[in-house]
């Protein structure tokens, strides 16, 4: 049945082929055509590869034809110049590259009038066109299907696993001996800020950012809140934590309550120290600005991720004369925090804050693991830069070494 069907496609395709092309002559049909289910995907896709022609110029074009079982004749999926659609353009890492880099590759995906059903066989062929001449390769049949593992991302998995072992190893090492932590001025100032608020008899304002609990920066902000709340409880200073996300509010309520318990001051804890305002960005900003101007907190903490509201919040805080400490992984907002806050925890320092404030070996060990990870990245950057520079200076082909470093990124 399959043979009959393939022959039918071949005959129909031949009917579309001009006489002079069939006769032979100047345009050769694409060679080494392979059609296969696109690897490492969720299905609904086929990939076709073929060899580069001996002489490819602007006049030579390729057409990819697909024959769907329900359709009568093959459908033209794409037509493009012969100097495009190479395997190297597909940006697949070297370990999953389906063919040599100089071969042609085209991926047929569902959408735009094509509906590739998993488990259904399709015939695909490639036609070479030069002027009025056409030459087609023999159609090849294959069946698309989904895959259970994306081998393109194996590098990512390997790095995470190795990094995980490095972190766990560093934690074990930190339990055995003390690890040096460099001074972070912003975190040293936490005590100063709380002390100042206590002296002035004014409250402390702590914001956990715009993110929800699924964001690491919000988790880091909540963890730091626990450390800050413990010290605030010891000084019996008022703490205000307005929230944008009700789930973050519920989590922070528990963290704050536990901190007051650990500080031995459960009676000082106020249930409404954590309160919800709104999920709307600028309504929240207006409300917090209002709190700053009316209550005039002596210390403002801005931890977590922020967007356009960052400057509106910190500039208002600066105008009230409060000591301001920010910590964010929103790199685009860092300039605003640096210009308006007294201290800013830049990027990873936000994640390091928990370790710095607690000095627990488990936490400090994680920082050492991160440092080792950074050192490895630095070495990879150095090697990559050296190869790239050498290839330009000495006109040498280090493409394999460069691909090796590039694809491991």
């Amino acid at each position, binding site marked *: 049945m399959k043979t009959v069907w393939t022959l039918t496609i071949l005959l129909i395709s031949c009917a579309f082929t001009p006489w002079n092309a069939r006769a032979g002559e100047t345009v050769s049909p694409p060679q080494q055509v392979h059609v296969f289910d696109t690897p490492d995907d969720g299905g609904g896709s086929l990939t076709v590869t073929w060899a580069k022609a001996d002489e490819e110029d602007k006049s030579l074009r390729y057409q990819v034809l697909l024959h769907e079982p329900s359709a009568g004749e093959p459908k033209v999926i794409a037509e493009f110049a012969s100097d495009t659609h190479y395997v190297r353009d597909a940006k697949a890492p070297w370990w999953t590259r389906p063919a040599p880099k100089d071969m042609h590759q085209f991926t047929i995906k569902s959408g735009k009038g094509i509906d590739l059903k998993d488990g259904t066989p399709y015939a695909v062929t490639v036609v070479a066109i030069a002027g009025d001449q056409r030459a087609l390769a023999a159609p090849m049949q294959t069946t698309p299907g989904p895959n259970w593992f994306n081998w393109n991302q194996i590098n990512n998995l390997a790095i995470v696993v190795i990094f995980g072992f490095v*972190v766990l190893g560093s934690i074990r090492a930190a339990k055995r001996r003390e690890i040096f932590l460099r001074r972070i001025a912003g975190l040293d100032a936490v005590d100063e800020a709380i002390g100042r608020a206590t002296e002035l008899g004014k409250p402390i304002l702590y914001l956990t950012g715009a993110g929800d609990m699924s964001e690491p920066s919000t988790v880091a902000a909540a963890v730091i809140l626990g450390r800050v709340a413990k010290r605030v409880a010891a000084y019996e200073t008022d703490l205000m934590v307005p929230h944008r996300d009700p789930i973050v509010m519920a989590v922070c309520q528990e963290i704050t309550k536990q901190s007051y318990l650990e500080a031995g001051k459960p009676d000082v804890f106020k249930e409404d120290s954590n309160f919800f305002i709104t999920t709307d*960005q600028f309504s929240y900003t207006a409300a917090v600005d209002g709190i700053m101007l009316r209550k005039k907190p002596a210390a403002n903490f801005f931890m977590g991720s922020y967007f*356009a509201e960052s400057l509106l919040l910190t500039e208002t805080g600066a105008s009230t004369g409060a000591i301001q400490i920010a910590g964010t992984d929103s790199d685009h907002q860092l300039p605003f925090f640096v210009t308006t806050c007294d201290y800013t925890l830049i990027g990873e320092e936000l994640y390091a804050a928990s370790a710095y404030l607690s000095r627990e070996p488990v936490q400090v060990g994680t920082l050492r693991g991160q440092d080792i990870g950074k050192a490895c990245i630095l070495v990879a950057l150095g090697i990559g830069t050296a190869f790239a520079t050498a290839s330009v200076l000495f006109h040498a082909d280090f493409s394999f070494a460069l691909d090796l470093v590039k694809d491991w990124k």
Partner: protein
Amino acid sequence: MTFLRRQLPLLITFVTGILFAAQYYIPHPSSELMLTSVSKWLQIIGGFALILGVTSLFHIHAVKIRRKEAGWGYSFVLYAGMLGTIVIGLWHGGKETTDGVTTAFGWIYTFMMVPLQGTMFAILAFFIASAAYRSFRARSREAAVLLIAAVIVMLGRVPLGEHLIPISGDITQWILNVLNASVRRAILIGISLGAVALSLKIIFGVERAYLGGGKE
């Protein structure tokens, strides 16, 4: 009790953490379906959590009004605004327009909410000017460098600047593409490693402070 407060949340975190970390590497439709389902669960949980948030908001402001605390009038305005919007919204079935005509609910959104949000956003322009004035005063060597770089970049980004000093465009591009981009990438590498380390600590139960502190 400890099991419910400690071990069970840690177990759920470990299982779901591993499961969804693995999901990233599995392109199969069933994996995508699982992610979609869980995203819907999160939306439902978020909906219920909003009740928690609104209850907190009502409670805080009710206490302020009852005790006549300083600024209780603002709380009253909040109550009036919120309840008024809810009632009008329910009256119009949550629709902003009916047969092409703007409803009262739509009017509140278009002519009150949107301009108020726009006003807050517009204030940003003035705040940027005041923050820039404060930070660009060349009080230290670093501030002087910042000032010079900022002036060059500002000149290079406007046609008049490029007309006055033609090279400012190229210098601006160099500052942005070389100096700025490299520092930004360094920060992003640190952030990414920090986020991965924190995620690993949470998945493996090393970091438990988010559960409410304690070490038991």
